[in-house]
């Protein structure tokens, strides 16, 4: 929970954990853009910056000389730096730390997981049974990515609740509470250390076993590096995709015309998915200023924290015509939901496949549904934003 004082002036005192931001960040960005290309805040240690234009966000993602990835979450207090490569790595270390992970997440490998993803989706939908009212975020969207990540990493789906708890404590609680951060990282390390030891004794075909065999410049990865990467994958691979699937279902539950059109034109789904990614981009990153510089006339002081809002870049009308509108047939859509530059989301092929399969199976079973009357949809705050509840009412097809 956020017990900070409410924000009155977003241009010089922004707070991305303020309930106004969590419920409707778009209005805040749109109000700032005409007069304030970069908002600032002293609520975060050493000051924080919020660039709003696509161009500035693009420039920062590319400028590793002035902006470091060593801090990827804007926090009230800067916690000691503990790397989770490759997302917290800067060049030159970033390049090989990322390269070893590219093959297992390339389109070719991801394609192999499609049948399993479909099975998972179908059985989750079957578990709904004949209930006409249920929560699509909790009973469906949330469970798809957990199953797939467990399959890739060779983990037990029974631990899903533990993973969710770690993610919450890292991405939400940890933003204001340094101690919580350190404790949760310790728990994750212990869990993965045990997994590593099991694989050393009995190697398998999973990603953890693979990380024990790969080398960088002729050297095996250090245990610290492997632990960091595993912690990153479990944090990055679940809530993100959950949020995107959930936001897509929420959109269709609240926009009957788009729902009807997608049911009638299923070939439009990949285009619609890109638009859901643009419009409801769930992931906001951060950078630390490591060398003073200026963007859009605004100084960025060394040590400052930059809130790198890919979601705001995606809503910049200078880059996307009708940026505020969700157009499921938007043909020109070079959005930044998966980041820009060298840290492009490693899981982007996987996340897209999961979204498409999850929506295909959902629409096959429920071509007609809407949000339950009076339902309150809550969105998660912080690094990953998505609807945590999507209570739907589904209408069964008549079968003769």
């Amino acid at each position, binding site marked *: 929970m956020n017990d900070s004082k409410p924000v009155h002036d977003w241009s010089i005192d922004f707070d991305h954990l303020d309930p106004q931001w969590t419920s409707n960040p778009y209005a805040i960005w749109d109000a700032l853009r005409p007069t304030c290309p970069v908002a600032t805040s002293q609520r975060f240690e050493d000051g924080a910056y919020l660039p709003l234009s696509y161009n500035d966000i693009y420039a920062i993602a590319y400028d590793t000389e002035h902006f470091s990835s060593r801090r990827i979450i804007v926090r009230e207090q800067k916690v000691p730096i503990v790397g989770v490569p490759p997302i917290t790595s800067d060049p030159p270390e970033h390049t090989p730390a990322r390269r070893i992970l590219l093959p297992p*997440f*390339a*389109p070719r490998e991801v394609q192999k997981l499609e049948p399993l993803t479909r099975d998972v989706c179908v059985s989750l939908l079957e578990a709904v049974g004949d209930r006409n009212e249920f929560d699509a975020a909790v009973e469906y969207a949330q469970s798809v990515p957990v199953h797939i990540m467990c399959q890739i990493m060779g983990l037990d789906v029974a631990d899903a609740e533990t993973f969710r708890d770690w993610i919450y404590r890292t991405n939400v609680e940890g933003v204001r509470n340094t101690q919580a951060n350190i404790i949760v990282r310790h728990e994750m390390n212990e869990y993965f250390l045990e997994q590593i030891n099991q694989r050393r004794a009995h190697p398998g075909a999973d990603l953890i076993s693979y990380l024990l065999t790969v080398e960088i410049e002729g050297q095996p990865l250090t245990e610290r590096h492997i632990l960091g990467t595993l912690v990153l994958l479990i944090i990055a691979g679940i809530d993100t995709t959950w949020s995107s699937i959930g936001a897509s279902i929420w959109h269709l539950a609240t926009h009957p015309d788009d729902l009807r059109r997608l049911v009638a034109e299923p070939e439009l789904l*990949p285009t619609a998915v890109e638009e859901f990614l643009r419009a409801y981009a769930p992931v906001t990153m951060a950078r630390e200023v490591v060398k003073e510089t200026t963007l859009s006339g605004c100084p960025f002081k060394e040590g400052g924290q930059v809130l790198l809002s890919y979601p705001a870049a995606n809503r910049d009308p200078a880059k996307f015509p009708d940026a505020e509108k969700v157009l499921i047939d938007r043909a*020109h*859509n070079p959005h*930044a939901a998966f980041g*820009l530059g060298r840290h492009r989301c490693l899981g*982007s092929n996987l996340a897209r496949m999961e979204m498409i399969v999850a929506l295909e199976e959902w629409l096959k079973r429920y071509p007609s549904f809407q949000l339950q009357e009076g339902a309150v949809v809550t969105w998660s705050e912080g690094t990953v934003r998505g609807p945590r509840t999507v209570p739907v009412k589904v209408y069964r097809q008549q079968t003769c």
Partner: protein
Amino acid sequence: MSEQDQQFVLFISSERCQGHSRCCSLAPELVASDDYGYAQVIGDGIVPADLLSKAKLAVANCPEFAIRLNRA
């Protein structure tokens, strides 16, 4: 010369490509991803007239400005 008579060639900058795979999905006849997920032009990159609109979509959707359509 009209667009129909023009020949176009698709070009991908391996420096700029970050492996978003947008072009591979939009124009699978023209671009494929390698083992690392980076996009590679298939063959000589010459775009047949009937695939020109797909090639243009691939260019327009690249978030990294990594793919270009040049006049042959």
